[in-house]
């Protein structure tokens, strides 16, 4: 009895989700390709890949928050931005002689560094800030909302307002944030010249390593009891309460992890892109982040990575050649994925998913079959 119980249950170990053997060959090959990428693709393509991998960190966070926790966040851009600004502030300061101010402060009429900029002179504070600032804000915000048992669509809409408010705030506080322009023109980070190939490759590998590490860690987390409870809360939050669990901290933890990953993603993205600006944090970019995950599969970490790469590569390729078409395509992809393929690309991969897809396609063409 006990033996049969343990088979195929998520409770049987940290790596229960991963079936060893043949199926490990594929991920290993993918990672190996990733490691060798600097020699396989052009410098520009490597930079693209690096950015998109950074974004994939955020996407994996959304799998936890949205897929597993059922909490749709339309405000991930905020945390992405916080991480990006934290590292960017440091790089702005690091490039200055003592007592100098960043250029935009000067021409905004500021004559002293705002107090909250000062700690970011320290690289350690900046790195901690990348994870702690988004994490703390997310924890506080989500706790305030979840503890009052506001969730679902309401939460999604409030996070959307958060994205709007954050972007507006950044823009309107130009003297201390760089406003609409954001922060740009970075030379060095932690004393390393960002322009050298070694720095570029090193940052790329760091990003790749983080993607792999976060993938494994989240996988273990989703297989843990925490993951089970998170899914249980998604299913019936009140029921869980009457089994003696307080759903709030579980959701807050998921949301905070999602935010920390977004912050990390934002910081790495900023390093790769050389700029962080409000255009990355507002309502529209935040929704696009959800698209990556929807396309890839909201319950699949690998799907989230694939979705992020696929959507962004398509955007890079299609939007210049067919700018009008791109928006139609993006809209259409979203509609089709959500209606026909709720499991995303990942859902297509599994056999059941493929069968379901066929069926849904049939329903779409022939009509209702409920």
């Amino acid at each position, binding site marked *: 009895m006990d033996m049969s119980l343990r088979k195929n249950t998520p409770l049987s170990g940290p790596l229960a989700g991963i079936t060893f053997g043949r199926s490990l060959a594929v991920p290993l090959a993918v990672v190996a390709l990733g490691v060798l990428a600097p020699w396989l693709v*052009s*410098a*520009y*393509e490597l*930079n*693209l890949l690096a*950015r998109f991998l950074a974004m994939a960190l955020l996407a994996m966070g959304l799998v936890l928050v949205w897929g597993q926790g059922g909490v749709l966040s339309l405000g991930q851009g905020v945390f992405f931005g916080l991480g990006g600004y934290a590292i960017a502030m440091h790089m702005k300061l690091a490039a200055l002689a003592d007592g100098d101010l960043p*250029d*935009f402060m*000067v*021409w*905004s*009429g500021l004559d002293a560094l705002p107090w909250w900029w000062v700690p970011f002179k320290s690289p350690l504070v900046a790195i901690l800030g990348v994870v702690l600032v988004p994490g703390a804000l997310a924890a506080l915000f989500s706790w305030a909302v979840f503890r009052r048992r506001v969730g679902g669509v309401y939460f999604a809409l409030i996070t959307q307002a958060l994205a709007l408010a954050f972007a*507006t705030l950044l*823009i*309107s506080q*130009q003297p201390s944030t760089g*406003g*609409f*322009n*954001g922060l*740009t*023109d*970075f030379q060095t980070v932690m004393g390393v010249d960002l*322009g050298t190939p070694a720095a570029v490759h090193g940052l790329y590998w760091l990003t790749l390593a983080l993607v792999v590490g976060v993938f494994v860690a989240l996988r273990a987390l989703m297989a843990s009891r925490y993951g089970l409870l998170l899914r249980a809360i998604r299913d019936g939050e009140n029921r869980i309460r009457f089994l003696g669990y307080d759903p709030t901290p579980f959701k807050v933890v998921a949301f905070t992890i999602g935010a920390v990953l977004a912050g990390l993603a934002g910081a790495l*993205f900023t390093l790769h*892109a*050389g*700029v*962080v*600006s409000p*255009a*990355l944090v507002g309502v529209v*970019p935040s929704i696009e982040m959800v698209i990556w995950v929807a396309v890839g599969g909201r319950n699949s970490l690998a799907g989230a990575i694939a979705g992020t790469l696929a959507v962004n590569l398509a*955007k*890079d390729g299609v*939007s*210049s050649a067919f*700018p009008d078409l*791109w*928006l139609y395509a993006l809209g259409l992809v979203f509609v089709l994925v959500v209606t026909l393929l709720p499991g995303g690309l990942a859902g297509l991969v599994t056999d059941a998913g493929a069968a379901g897809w066929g069926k849904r396609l049939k329903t779409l063409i022939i009509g209702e079959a409920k």
Partner: protein
Amino acid sequence: ADTVKVGVLQSLTGTMAISEVTVKNAEILAIDEINASGGVLGKKVEAVVEDGGSDPAIFAQKATKLVQDGGVVTVFGGWTSASRKAMLPVFQKLKSLLWYPVQFEGNECSPNIMYSGAQPNQQILPALQWAVEKGYKSYFLIGSDYVFPRTANLILKKHIDADKLKVAGEEYVPLGGTDFSAVIAKVQAAKPDIIFSTLNGDSNVSFFKQMAAAGLPSAKLPVMSFSIGEQEAVAMGPSLVEGSYAAWNYFQSLDGAANKKFVAAYQAKFGAGAAVTDPMVHGYVDVYAWKAAVEKAGSFDPEKVRAAAVALDYLDTAMGKVKFAANQSLVQTGYIGQLDPTGQFKIIWQSKGTIDPDPYDPLVFPGKKCPAS
């Protein structure tokens, strides 16, 4: 090969597409014309068009793509200062050259950028000079909430103070903002003589409509705009903004054969009614200036082209006689126009001759310099 590639990098999607597509059109028009007349240094010019997506990070990404992977010798593009700021490090690092066509807030002087759009002292300050000459004493500053309006107003305030005139108020609304009820209430309370507006795009429509509804049409309370061109005026319905003022370095209604020829060529390609605006002309002029510089240098090398460009003599362009100064900004004339019912501007004032560009206003940024000569 007998072609040379240049990049055209504007937002084709997103909020800025509306403006930037027209600049792209003008740039492509110039490139086509150049090819039709034999190219540059015997080579056909091939335009590689990329979409900046109204996102500075994408501008940086695409600039890298163009220069590093695309093999372009120079890039024409950008509109928002945010996009320029994001591209600047890319051009510096890759030692390439960007031609930037839009009026901006100054405070920047990179050897890798050719700034053809107006510096503050070529657009904002001439407008103030005109207003002072007209006898306006009390100024209300309204802008969209981003860098250009805030910096422009910073400069204006210093100069208004220095002239012992009055700043009646200063208000910002978020980009794309549509509700001006509170701002208008504050205007009504402050009773200024004139409004200086750095509002961008759609917000202008809301602003003028709600001003008119509140009993303050332009006829009653004049408005000087720094971001309304012919295209915006037509779209807003010229009767709405009729009588209001704008300051630019080019108006479609300018005299001169070069302008007639440019407008005709543009309308032949993009429709008889197509409006032509200041940034479009700057984009168009940039391409010709690049050609002239390349030919003078006898090379496509960005460093040599830059050196040649600032050494060129006055070019006769649609916007009159212009040339690049030593600080890589354009020497040009400032005009004030008043909107007529057809959406065209009647030119009512112009600066005495051309104005040398000055990125750093001496009142606001004493000590910083990037001289024109």
